[in-house]
Every structure is written in C-alpha cells, then in structure tokens.
C-alpha cells in the first residue's frame, strides 16, 4: 500500500476529485487500498466474516468522512487509523468474551486458524509438518495473549511494513509508544517461540 511519489501525487488528485463528488475517483481510492485493508483485518481477526465487517465499516466511514480529510497526514495513515481502531475494538470485545476458537467457519468450510497457509505447508515430511503445526498453534496462542494494541502494532509493523512513526500516527500515539508496544510484543513472541526456532 506504500505509494511512490508519483503515485502519491496521483492519489492526492483522486482524493480531491472524490471530495468534489467524483464517484470514479472514490472507487479508485477504494481499489488502491482495499486489499491491504482486508489483509490487515484478516490477519488481525483471523476470521473472514469479521474481516468482511471491518472492510465494510472502514470504507463506509471513509465515504462519510472523506470531506474532513485535510491532507495533514497521508491517506494511508488516515485509512489505517480507521481500520486499526475498528480491529482494536473487535479484539477488545473478543477479549472480554474470551470466545475465540482456533477453528473458524470460512466459505470453504471449517478451518483451523493455526494452519499455515496451504502453500507454505511442508510437503512429504510428516515430522516437519507436525513441527510446523505445533509452531502454528504456539504462534496463534501468543498472538492471542498480546494486548489488542500490541497486536495491532505488531501486525502493522511485521506484516504491513509500516514504519513506527506511521504506526504512531495511525494509532494516535507517539513513535516511542509504538516502539514500546512492538518491543513488548516481540519479547512475548520470543519468550513463547524461542525454543521452536
């Protein structure tokens, strides 16, 4: 989702056009960012339905509030602020309910959240497959044990590749606070997974 300089200028033009009522420009903005939004929600929530809900709510909010966007941060940061807040809320609700199960219903049927991506499964090596599965379960568990904020910071840094400064901006906090969060998250990961790697 990181844009080059020329693309960023194009994007500013789309935003202005969308703010002026250009539907096609709004659609281009959505298309430019929606895959990343969905990926972030999917990785944070590990549920297709929850990711779907977050996607819808994120872009409806963008639609309703785009006229308030003043270019005082990048559009990406503004967008991540919306999606991160929605995901944090969802994670907090789950924490409160303690309901998260490792198995989720997907369009393709029940699936174990701790499964690695099918392409990444070690082929023809049962021992490695078992190890990988155990590692997956351990990772799933440690991600669950992170606070919602640690989880979001880790996700934005590790999987989305955002700089800590941008993460701080997106979460309405300082770079230093985001760094502390990331530090805590990786400490917990290391403590839980150190013997596996």
């Amino acid at each position, binding site marked *: 989702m990181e844009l080059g300089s020329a693309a960023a200028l194009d994007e500013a033009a789309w935003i202005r056009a969308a703010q002026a009522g250009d539907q096609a420009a709004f659609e281009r903005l*959505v298309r430019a960012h929606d895959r990343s939004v969905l*990926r972030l929600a999917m990785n944070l929530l590990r549920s297709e339905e929850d990711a779907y809900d977050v996607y819808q709510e994120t872009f409806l909010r963008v639609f309703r509030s785009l006229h308030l966007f003043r270019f005082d941060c990048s559009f990406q940061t503004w967008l991540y602020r919306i999606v991160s807040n929605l995901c944090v809320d969802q994670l907090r609700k789950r924490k409160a309910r303690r309901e998260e199960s490792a198995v989720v219903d997907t*369009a393709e049927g029940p699936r174990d959240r701790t499964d690695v991506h099918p392409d990444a499964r070690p082929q023809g090596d049962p021992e490695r497959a078992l190890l990988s599965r155990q590692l997956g379960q351990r*990772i799933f568990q440690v991600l669950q044990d992170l606070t919602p904020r640690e989880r979001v910071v880790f996700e934005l840094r*590790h999987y989305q590749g955002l700089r800590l400064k941008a993460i701080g901006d997106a979460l309405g906090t300082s770079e230093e606070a985001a760094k502390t969060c990331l530090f805590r998250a990786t400490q917990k990961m290391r403590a839980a997974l150190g013997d596996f*790697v």
Partner: protein
Amino acid sequence: MNCETVKRDLSLFLYGELTLEEEQALQDHVEACPACRQALEAEKLLHQALDERELEPPATLLVRCRQDLSRRLQSGAPARPGWLAWLRQPLGWQTIFKPVGAVALVALGFVAARWTGPGAGPPAMPLGEPMTSQVRYLEPDPSGNLRIVVEETRQRVLSGRLDEEPIRQLLLAAAREARDPGLRGETVDILRAQPEAADVRRALLATFEHDPNDGVRLKALEGLKSFATEPDVRSTLVRSLLVDENPGIRIQAIDLLIQKREDALVGVLQELMQRESNNYVRLRCQRALQEMNASVGTF
C-alpha cells in the same frame, strides 16, 4: 553496547527501527560476540516463522466485499441531492462562511437548487418573482392531504462597495460557493484588492488551496503575493507545492517561497526534487536550491 542490550534490540534491528548509530553498534557487537550472533540468527528464524503465518484473504472474499460495499453505497445514498453532492461539501469553509453563507446564496443567485421559474412554485407563493425552491420534507396524513416543506430562495440585487461588511461577506461566500468558476474568479479578483483583511486572506488561502479551477487558484495566488513571507501563506504554499496538479502554480509557489530563505524550505525543495515529475518544476527547484547553497539531494 552489551549482550543484554543487543538481545533486547535484535527485533528492532531486523525491522530497521534502530538509529544509524545503534545499528552500527549492534552490528559491531554481533561480529565480535558468538552468543549474540547466534541470538541474531534465532531472531531471523523467528521472523521467518512469523512471515509464514501471514494470511492472504481469498479472492472471493475481496470480490464479495467490493460488491457489497458498492451496493451499500448505492442504496444508502439519498435520492436528492445524492452522495456526490454530499461529498462536494467544502473543506474547511463551513467555519469561515457559515454565518453568511445562506444570505449570500440568496443574494447572488448561485444556489444549486432547482430553478422553478416564475409561477412554477406552490400557489401560496407570489408569482412573477425569480425564485428557486426545493422540496425538503413531505408528510402525507391519513385524510389524503400532503404536508410539504419547501425551501425557497429569492433573488434580489444588492449594491455597495467592497469595504462594506455585508458586501464583503457575500463576496467571501461567493468565492467558495459559486458553481461557476468565472464568477469565483471575478470574486477573487475583487477580494484581492483588500488582502490585508484577515477574513479576505483566509478566503484567498482557502481558494488557492482548494479551488478545483486552475485559473481561480492562480488569481488567489496573485492576491497572496504580497504576504509570501507570512507563516500562514508559506505553509499553504508548501502544501500546494507538494500536491497542486498544475506545474505553473508549483513554479510560482517556489518563486514566492524563496523570497524568504529559511532552513526548513531546503528540506521541502529537496523532497520536491524526489517526487516532482515535471522537468520545468524540477529545474526551477534545482535552481532555487543552488541559490540557497543547498544540495539537490537529501543523501
């Protein structure tokens, strides 16, 4: 840097979030310390294991999300004036013009409401006067009567001078609200005769930054020239320099900004050099940096 600090910072190192000095110190330590070298390898493996857990949403989910979003936007949009018109709300102008906006719309007759023409309004309205009207609310009652709330505006002619408050306020509203860029341009032309008034300057700044028409933006820029060293004007110029689509405006923004040579401007121009695609603007930018004895790149 000792082993404890290194082990603590390994992850931040792999994320590239340490300062150059910290990074150098960590690398130096790792080279000399086998235990920390091993810890670094373990940290890399941990990152790799985490990389493999990334989920890619199924394509079918993305398609469903897009289709449903599109449907929701369509169905959620009011019939009139439509979401496009809703999105057209101005940026930051409400606060400037709200108190006078309604009056201005009536008086100058550039309201975007439906033109009904003489005699086309409800019977209670006086006929023969130019008028715009719009149905705002409709309520049928059980007896079959309809209660309709109609918003109406009437045209009238005002005359006066720019230094008269009502006239100036109307012009300020017109500079933003008029749909016709020609009218906005004329308004800006008149307003820029009084750029020392704070509200006029705000209006010129907002027009320069937000007006969709290049000609109108240029006129607003003309009006701001004598204030090119003022902080509010400079920050608007910098923003436009980085986002305005018109290369002519970007060049003029550079010309005005370098009237006051300050350190912060060097960084702005260097950033512009990185992202600017227009050769003329790049050349002007390069010359400005040279005039300021600054390097062209940030290195």
